[in-house]
């Protein structure tokens, strides 16, 4: 295994093989700002790391003079339960935030893997989402404000602490998915949701791609409003589909019963699962498994074709695979172990060709095997609007010192 970012998490000093000349953990945002100001004066390259759970995403940075860890930026800056809004520093973990909110009957409607380790800043930078995206959207839909420490050390903010705000360009959303290439995410403000009174998960075993597509269509046709709908499998076997309903008890019971009827109408059967963590735990296990992790996206209507042309071949090429599909969203995650560079590289290339032909994409979340990593581009074909992205990066970071090389197109 290459010296990768897990190395940093364990106290090591290399970022995917690129050694960090110095590692700093600023005590507060003022200190972080001073670190970036100094780096600017010296022309040093800076990379950021939160929990380090998704450092395999993107290209390895070409240069890391200073690695800034956000582990001490963990304050809840402001929490207004009556307004369902919270502002936190970027180094706070998702679990710590949820723990802070729960006594008030609230949560950030985000259920990404590794909540005990993953930080809000990292989740924003990687554009992370979990199964509840079906109902609540992504961080893009939940973030209302951000403050960044820019490449020159200036601390700037966009958005605010009210949920509705169109004053100025939308810096919070630009930060989502920016992979540390525009600035350090110092603080972020989110809209919150009430914790549901009740929840019920149901499982349908033995689904193929066509069945997932049929369940998707029927959920929408019957106007059910699941919080999550995902399918999971190991190896290239059939999928177990999970649906989660959340809300007030009467509504949840009604939807669960109607889903059972829906399954019966599709000549299948839904079994109620007594669990407080399904399906997020299934999602987490599969998405964090293995040494090869991929994410695919197509238009939702193409889900059965994606299964046939991309997910199936990938599941057969990798060892001990897991696949997660969010059928109503057209998103899938495939993970497993590398047991033959050549076969996997060509399966990934074929899968990418197939989803890109349907206006979708395949991105690498992590490939640990160096030989395989060399064969597979992290992102695939650049969008035709890439020239604008390059210009945006040049405006924010004219000397190319923030996470150099890591972002799309090697920005």
């Amino acid at each position, binding site marked *: 295994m290459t010296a990768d970012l897990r190395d940093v998490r364990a106290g090591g000093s290399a970022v995917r093989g690129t050694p960090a000349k110095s590692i700093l953990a600023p005590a507060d945002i003022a200190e972080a700002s001073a670190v970036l100001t100094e780096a600017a004066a010296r022309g040093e390259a800076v990379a950021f790391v939160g929990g380090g759970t998704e450092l395999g995403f993107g290209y390895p940075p070409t240069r890391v003079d200073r690695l800034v860890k956000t582990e001490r930026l963990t304050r809840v800056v402001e929490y207004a339960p*009556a307004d369902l809004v919270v502002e936190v520093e970027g180094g706070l973990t998702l679990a710590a935030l949820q723990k802070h909110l729960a006594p008030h009957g609230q949560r950030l409607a985000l259920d990404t893997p590794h909540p005990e380790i993953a930080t809000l800043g990292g989740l924003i930078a990687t554009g992370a989402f979990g199964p509840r995206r079906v109902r609540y959207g992504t961080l893009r839909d939940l973030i209302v404000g951000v403050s960044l420490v820019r490449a020159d050390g200036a601390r700037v903010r966009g958005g605010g602490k009210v949920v509705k705000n169109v004053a*100025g360009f939308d810096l919070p959303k630009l930060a989502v998915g920016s992979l540390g290439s525009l600035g350090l995410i110092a603080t972020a403000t989110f809209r919150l949701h009430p914790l549901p009174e009740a929840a019920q998960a149901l499982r349908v075993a033995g689904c193929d791609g066509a069945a997932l597509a049929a369940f998707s269509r029927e959920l929408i046709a019957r106007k059910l409003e699941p919080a999550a709908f995902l399918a999971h499998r190991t190896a290239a076997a059939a999928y177990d589909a999970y649906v989660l309903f959340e809300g007030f008890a009467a509504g949840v019971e009604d939807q669960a019963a109607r889903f059972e009827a829906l399954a019966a109408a599709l000549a299948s059967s839904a079994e109620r699962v007594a669990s407080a963590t399904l399906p997020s735990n299934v999602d987490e296990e599969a998405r964090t498994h293995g040494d090869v992790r991929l994410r695919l996206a197509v238009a939702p209507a193409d889900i059965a074709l994606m299964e046939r042309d991309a997910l199936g071949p990938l599941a057969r090429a990798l060892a001990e695979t897991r696949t997660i599909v969010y059928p109503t969203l057209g998103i899938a995650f495939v993970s497993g172990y590398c047991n033959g560079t050549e076969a996997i590289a060509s399966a990934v290339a074929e899968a990418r060709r197939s989803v890109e032909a349907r206006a979708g994409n395949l991105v690498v979340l992590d490939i640990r095997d160096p030989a395989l990593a060399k064969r597979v581009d992290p992102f695939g074909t650049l969008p035709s609007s890439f020239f604008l992205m390059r210009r945006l990066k040049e405006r924010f970071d004219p000397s190319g010192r923030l996470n150099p090389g890591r972002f799309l197109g090697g920005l």
Partner: protein
Amino acid sequence: MMQSATLPANVSEIAAELTAIVGVKNRIVDPAELRTYECDGLAGVRVRPLAVVLPETTHQVAACVRIARRHGMPIVPRGAGTGLSGGALPVAGCLLVVLSRMNRILAVDLENRRIRLQPGVINLDVTRAIAPQGYYYAPDPSSQSVCSIGGNIAENSGGAHCLKYGFTVNHVVAATVVLADGDIVEIGSAAVDPLGYDLIAAVVGSEGMVGIVTEAVVRILRVPETTRTFFATFPSTDEAGACVSAIVAAGIVPAAVEMMDTLAIEAIVKATGVDWPLDVGAALLLDVDGTLAEVEHTAGAAVSIARQAGAIEVRMPKNDAERALMWKGRKSAFAAMGRISPNYYVQDGVIPRSEISTVLREIAAVTAREGLRVANVFHAGDGNLHPLVLYDARVPGEEHRAETVAGEILRICIRYGGSITGEHGVGVDKAVYMGELFGDADLETMNFVRCTFDPQRIFNPNKVFPTPRLCGDVPGSYAPHAVETSGAAGRG
């Protein structure tokens, strides 16, 4: 105020070039005809454009942009012209590009819940096109029967139901944009999660400063199984505000919560004939939607919370027609102000929801101090106020006092940690307050985004930013326009 541009000598040359692209019927240079386009919904400010084009295709838009560019003309895009912040207000010597003739729905994709359309499509027509199949387009500004999608994209329009369903930016997934050099670029993806930076978020809400959107793909939603509406009256805005907070504290996420005070109710009753009581201090109009069993619970809970909060009366519509009438009353509120005041000045500030009662009192105090009245009709669920400062322009000094009050209201919103605009945009109207809401480095960073798209600041100059902002290393050569060097107009 009225600005007049010194027409450059080459106006006939420009007209001929534009005619060659869009045809004589879609090109306006006659000063009398140009008057139609002197202002948008912010009717107090008027500037005559040098020329107007009404292109019908993306390529025509691109060609017109190139012509304007060649002649050093600034460009202002315009949709239906209903915006309330002057986003479509011409700047002196500009080419105004009006998108109203690009009004076709291009493709309906129910399976993926997407619709591809041109920018001139009227907001409500999107929903009308798909309602028979049980779908709708969620963003619903009160002007939805006349405003267009392109303008909605420029302003990141909201509406009553964005409390639950989000704003325009949450519903646009892809767009075709004509840039300042006339190049055409596709951003976003009709599928999901495009690679790279979120350019959609840069374009939606850019107030016409980054380019001209000539096509967009937007998400459409399934019509919820059930919607329950109720209308509750209260002794004052204090009880109504407390009711909103209590509903939220009970874990209910309403689809919409609208508040109207006595003056607003009076205007609406006079204008629309709805039978709302005039002797109350405030009313709430509230929608909850979702599956039937869920909604029965939440609607029931919300009604009992309203009663506990001191509601005088709670009315539930007996049928869809009654429900539609209630909403028509609410959505006609701005237009109804004519019944109680010759003129009004509308603000769009946002405050934390929990501060509604306090802030309304402060607004009332400021207004009274200036000897004016204020009507309030607003999106209470997300704290988006719409104070309507009433005045009579014929009375010397009143207009100025109304402007003073409007400015004070924005400062109050900023002081309570809110924003100067929740959905109307900054435009020219509130640009001066941007420097009070944001610091210089914040604005500089926002300008990075604008300069990424339009380094020479061709599109909608002098809007949004409080002071002129350059883009630094401007590539290529740029000849300033005659009106610019003469000082009649600048670029921002």
